[in-house]
C-alpha cells in the first residue's frame, strides 16, 4: 500500500481489504461458535466446567501457530533481509503470547475443578510455561535493543532458537520431570455427542482470531513506521 506524507500526518491510511474480510469472518465465526458452546450438552462427569475447554484448546492452537509464525518469519527476515517479514514476526509473537497467557489462565481454572490442583509439573504444562517465558523474553529483547536492524536480527535469532528449544525442553521434562496428567490429543469419537462441532469451530475461530490480530498488529506497525519521519519532525519542531 502506498501512502503519501499528508496521509501519514492525518492518520488516514485506510484499513486493508484483508483486515476487513478477516474481521467480518471472525465476527460471524465467533457468534456461531458462542452459540454452539452455549447449546453443547453438559459433560456428565465434569459438568459446566468442561465448557472452558472450548476456549482453552483454541487458545493453544493459536499460541503455537503464533510462535511457529514468529520463527518462520524470523528465518525469512534473516534470509531476505526484508523489514516486512520482521513486522509479521513481531506481530505473531505478541499475539502468540496473548493466546498463550489465555491458555495458561483458562487451563488452571479447568484443572482446579477437575484435578483438584491449579497446577502440576506435567511435561506439557511445564513446556508451555517455558515457551511463554521464551517469547516474553523475545518481546523484552525487542524493547531493550537499540537500532531497528539489530533489533530485528537479534529477535529473529531468538524466535528461531525459542521454537528449536521445544523438543529439548519437552524431552528433558518428560524423561526426568513429573508424571503426565494432561489429557492427550483428542482422538476421533473421544468427545460426547454434540461436543465435536464446538471444538472444531473453536479451533477455527482461534486461528481466525490469530490471523486477524496479526493483520491488525502488522497494520499498526506499518502505520508506526510510516509516521515515524513525521513524528521525528514534530518532536524536532516542539524541541523534544
Amino acid at each position: 500500500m502506498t501512502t503519501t506524507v499528508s496521509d501519514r500526518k492525518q492518520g488516514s491510511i485506510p484499513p486493508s481489504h484483508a483486515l476487513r474480510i478477516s474481521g467480518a469472518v471472525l465476527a460471524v465465526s465467533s457468534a456461531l461458535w458462542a452459540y454452539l458452546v452455549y447449546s453443547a450438552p453438559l459433560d456428565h462427569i465434569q459438568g459446566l466446567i468442561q465448557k472452558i475447554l472450548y476456549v482453552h484448546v483454541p487458545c493453544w492452537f493459536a499460541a503455537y501457530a503464533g510462535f511457529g509464525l514468529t520463527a518462520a518469519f524470523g528465518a525469512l527476515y534473516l534470509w531476505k533481509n526484508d523489514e516486512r517479514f520482521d513486522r509479521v514476526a513481531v506481530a505473531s509473537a505478541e499475539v502468540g503470547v496473548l493466546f498463550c497467557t489465555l491458555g495458561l489462565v483458562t487451563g488452571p481454572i479447568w484443572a482446579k475443578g477437575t484435578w483438584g490442583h491449579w497446577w502440576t509439573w506435567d511435561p506439557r504444562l511445564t513446556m508451555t510455561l517455558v515457551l511463554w517465558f521464551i517469547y516474553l523474553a523475545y518481546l523484552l529483547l525487542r524493547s531493550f535493543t537499540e537500532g531497528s536492524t539489530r533489533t530485528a536480527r537479534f529477535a529473529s535469532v531468538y524466535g528461531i532458537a525459542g521454537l528449536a528449544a521445544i523438543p529439548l525442553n519437552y524431552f528433558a521434562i518428560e524423561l526426568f520431570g513429573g508424571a503426565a496428567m494432561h489429557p492427550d490429543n483428542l482422538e476421533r469419537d473421544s468427545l460426547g455427542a454434540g461436543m465435536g462441532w464446538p471444538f472444531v469451530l473453536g479451533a477455527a475461530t482461534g486461528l481466525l482470531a490469530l490471523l486477524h490480530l496479526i493483520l491488525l498488529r502488522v497494520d499498526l506497525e506499518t502505520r508506526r513506521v510510516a509516521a515515524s519521519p513525521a513524528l521525528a519532525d514534530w518532536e524536532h519542531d516542539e524541541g523534544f
Partner: protein
Amino acid sequence: MNALLAVLWKDLLTEWRSRDRAVAMLLFSMLMVVIFHFSLPGGATTATRAYAPGLLWVAFVFSALLGLGRSFAIELENDAIERLARAPVDRGWVLLGKTLANLVILAFVQAITVCVFALVFEMDLTPIALELAGVVALGSLGLCSVGTFFAAVAVRTRFREVMLPLLALPFYTPVLIAASRATNSLFETGAVSFEPIQFLIVTDASYLIASFILSDFILDE
C-alpha cells in the same frame, strides 16, 4: 581453529592479569552456599542433603551468568567487539573460543565451590570426585555454550545485566534438569545414571552447533 585458540588465549590471559571475573564469581557462589545454609530449615546438614544437587546447580547457574555477562562487556571497551567482528575469520570460531574461555573460568570457580559445598553439607565427595567432575563439565558446557551466545546478544541491549538471565534461563532448563538428576543419582548411589548423561551430550552438541551456525547474526560491528 587458530581463531578459536587465539580468542581462548586472549580471554584467559586477560582474566589472569585482572582476576576480577573469577574472584567475583567465586565470592558470589560461596555466598550462595552460605545463604542456602540459612534458608534451609535446620541449616545445611545431612538431613537436608536431598536438596544438595539442585542447590549446587543453582549456585553454578547464577555464578555462570555473572561471569558470562562480563565476557562480552569487557569487549565494549575501546570498541574491541567491533574488531572481533571484523576479524577475517569465521565468527563461529570466535564465539567458540569465548565459550571455552568461559568454561575454563567457570571450572575453576566450580572446583572451589564444590569443596565449600561439601564442607557445609557435611558430605564426603572424594570417592565420586572424578564422576562428579565429568557431570559438572558436561552441564557447564551446556551453560557456557548457550550463555556465551546470549551474552553476545545481551551486551548490545539496554539493561544487559537483566537481559542475559531472561534470555538464557529458559534454555538452561533442560541442562539444569538433566545435570541435577545426574548429580542426584551420583550423590545417592555413587554411580552415574546413563540417561541424563546421554541427554546432556545431545543438549551440549545441539547448543554448540546452533550457536556456531547463528554466530554471524549476533556478532556484529
